[in-house]
């Protein structure tokens, strides 16, 4: 077998094993939350009889291990069950929330990833001169501010004062693509500012690392333009760390944006998950956890595979 195929297969198998472990953790985690779903649904108004009725109705009185395997097999078949709190089909509800989350993440990624890499290259080109310092100063400032504060500042300036973009980013199916883009402009901008610095600094550091190598000196001595040296010669050898940090940030854009969703009232997965955690709606929490774990593991898998593929020694074994 070609060593690359072997390596990639190994990674895939490891990913699956990791996912299985994650599913166990998710299930255990939801079991140790204080109070159970019956208590949470009935809230302050729970009476002992109503609690007992509800627990029996939801099958919460059966052993955990039985419930775990039942849940896992159903989830593998794409059946995530129904939400305990409002009886809606989870797969259906999650589909629209997940689409929204992926939409916002894609918009932010399409802007931030190329921008971060370009700024990284640019910073290397003008290393230690004012463009480098300016880029670092701005991106580091924006990553240092808490997201909600950035959100409120953007909202105040662009929605309340200038009225360029809406402050409420609620989107729905009846909106056209352009209307949706307009609606998510502010959250996408904030997310871009939040992830930019990490990717930009990593690109810069990775390339600077390679720039010390002898072959870069050779390229420079050949008389190549400085930006070409960086983009054509240095960059390919720093792809592995850059891809890793890009994937990490993409994963963050999907699984870590609940604060932005709340501030801009965006109907994504984060808010959906938080609502159901506070209601102890275990099947939904488990389903969200599983999806998040899949995305996280999946993106890291991609990063690994790309790193492997970008290494000529692995691509062309002797």
């Amino acid at each position, binding site marked *: 077998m070609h060593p690359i195929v072997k390596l990639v297969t190994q990674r895939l198998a490891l990913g699956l094993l990791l996912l299985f472990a994650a599913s166990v953790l998710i299930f255990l985690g939801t079991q140790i*939350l*204080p*109070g159970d779903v019956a*208590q*949470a*649904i*009935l*809230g*302050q*108004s*729970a*009476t002992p*009889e*109503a609690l007992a*009725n*509800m627990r029996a109705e939801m099958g919460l009185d059966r052993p955990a291990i039985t419930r775990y395997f039942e849940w896992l097999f159903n989830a593998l078949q794409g059946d995530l069950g129904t*939400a305990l*709190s*409002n*009886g*809606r089909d989870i797969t259906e*509800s999650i589909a*629209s*929330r997940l689409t929204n989350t992926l939409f916002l993440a894609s918009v932010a990624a399409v802007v931030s990833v190329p921008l971060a890499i370009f700024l990284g290259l640019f910073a290397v080109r003008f290393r230690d001169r004012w463009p480098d310092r300016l880029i670092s100063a701005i991106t580091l400032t924006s990553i240092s501010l808490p997201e909600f504060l950035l959100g*409120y500042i953007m*909202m*105040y300036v662009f*929605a*309340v004062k200038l*009225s360029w973009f*809406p*402050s*409420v980013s*609620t989107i*729905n199916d009846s909106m056209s693509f352009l209307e949706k883009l307009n609606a998510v402009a502010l959250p996408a901008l904030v997310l871009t500012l939040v992830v930019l610095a990490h990717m930009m600094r990593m690109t810069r550091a990775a390339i600077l690392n390679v720039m010390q190598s002898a072959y870069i000196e050779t390229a420079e001595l050949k008389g190549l333009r400085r930006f070409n040296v960086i983009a054509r010669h240095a960059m390919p050898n720093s792809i592995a760390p850059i891809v890793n940090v890009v994937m990490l940030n993409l994963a963050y854009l999907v699984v870590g944006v609940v604060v932005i969703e*709340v*501030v*801009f*009232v965006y*109907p994504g997965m984060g*808010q*959906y998950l938080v*609502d*159901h*955690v*506070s*209601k102890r*709606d275990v099947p939904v929490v488990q389903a969200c956890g599983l999806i998040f774990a899949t995305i996280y593991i999946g993106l890291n898998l991609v990063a690994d595979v790309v790193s492997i593929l970008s290494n000529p020694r692995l691509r062309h074994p002797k």
Partner: protein
Amino acid sequence: MNDEFQYLLNRTARGKLDRRSFMGRAAALGVAGATAGSLLGSAALAQGPRRGGTLTMGMQGGESTNSLDPAAAQSQVPFAYLKIMGEPLINIDDNGNLEGRVAEEFEASADAMTWRFKIRSGITFHNGQPLTAEDCAQTLRRHSDEDSQSGALGIMRGISNISTDGDTLILETSTPNADLPYLLSDYHLMMQPNGGFDDPTAGIFSGPYKIVDNEPGVRHTFERFEEYWDSSMGHFNAIELLVINDATARNSALQSGQVQLVNRVPPTVAGLLGRAPGISIQTTAGRGHYVFIMHCNTAPFDNMDLRLALKHAINREDMLDRILRGYGSLGNDMPINASYPLFDNTIEQRTYDPDQARFYFERSGHSGPIDLRTADGAFAGAVEAAQLFQESAAAAGIELNIIREPNDGYWSEVWNTEPFCASYWGGRPVQDQMYSTAYVSDADWNDTRFFNERFDSLLYEARGELDLTRRKELYSEMGRIVRDEGGLINPMFNDFIDAHNDQITGWVSNPNLELMDGLAPSKMWSTE
């Protein structure tokens, strides 16, 4: 103000001229924008309701777990959408009087144990089906069933038999209940076809609007139900209810004009928001209150002197000022205030008195710190309120040890479990219901573990007493008992603070619940 301006004003108020052109021409006549806007508001109010337009409202209190089943409603957004879509038998009007809605007329037998409700004819459900007395009976039956897990179950317990006679609904109670019609105004008790037994989450009701989109925790949209029987409600063509749980986002949306009406303005920003152009803050003194509760049967709180010491050791004025910024009123260690019918306003207001507190504390013989549990989610500002309490109690030589609990699980692990904690009550329409819910010995949520025979017998006597003077006396004595002997420390009643901009008008103060008892979307109208 010249004639031309007046002419423009009237035309705009009648909808002949749009608001933008009006503001432009008013400016040309030298009338400043804010003045023109507020004049337009009063002119529009004077012209009376105008049909048309879309209302967009932003509300706190919605989750993606919300259901359209009225039995399951608990937070503000389900309350609001049920009020928009549904209609109960009876409402409590702006002045606290009973107003027949689905029930046209109602009367009690002399012993207040049998009530007859004549159901209004000509009401149809959103699916076109006519509403009958049997539908009403079925609705009440469903909420009476323990299995329905209805939020109105406590109210329905006293009803022993539900039957119909032609177009009349007959309710019989096991004990006399003079307050029954008030209780039926509860927002869970919206009439549904066949009582919702077929599909409680179908969203089919008989109110002024019918649901179009239902995305729990995100948005709910409605369009006017043209066959609704009462033309004084339902002025907007459509309503869009956006769930905006973040207060800053809600206020920004109001300021940028994306929404016209919001609930739950935080007291800390209400003053600032009210100064923004075109924004009106509406405060309503309500029955909701923020409390600290002690279990009367658990040491050290089983000692009445200790309870009195703590009641004297809290600075109510200071707390009202700092936690609610004055948007509220003082509590008097009982759950009742002037917003309730038959309130006795001669009961002396308890004040902060460190000397008295010290006296009672020493007499109680207790020593050492007392644990007080609180959480951000107990009520807005509960952690700060506990700190204020700690300070004012320290001045009386009482040491409070504040334990900050997580919001998550507070209502299951702390409230009604731990002997001393912060909490809140939303209030109930009548005194009887408030006391039956939490203070009578066998109450479902006796969260102060208050067991007082005298109090219980007064409650049952008052419930069947149709003579109002006598009833008021009974309630007065009950209030005094809870105030002096109970486990409730009630520093303040909170106001509802809502806000709207000048694109809508028609706000009328209603003491029941927020957003004009949830009727603002149906009763207000557009000025554009």
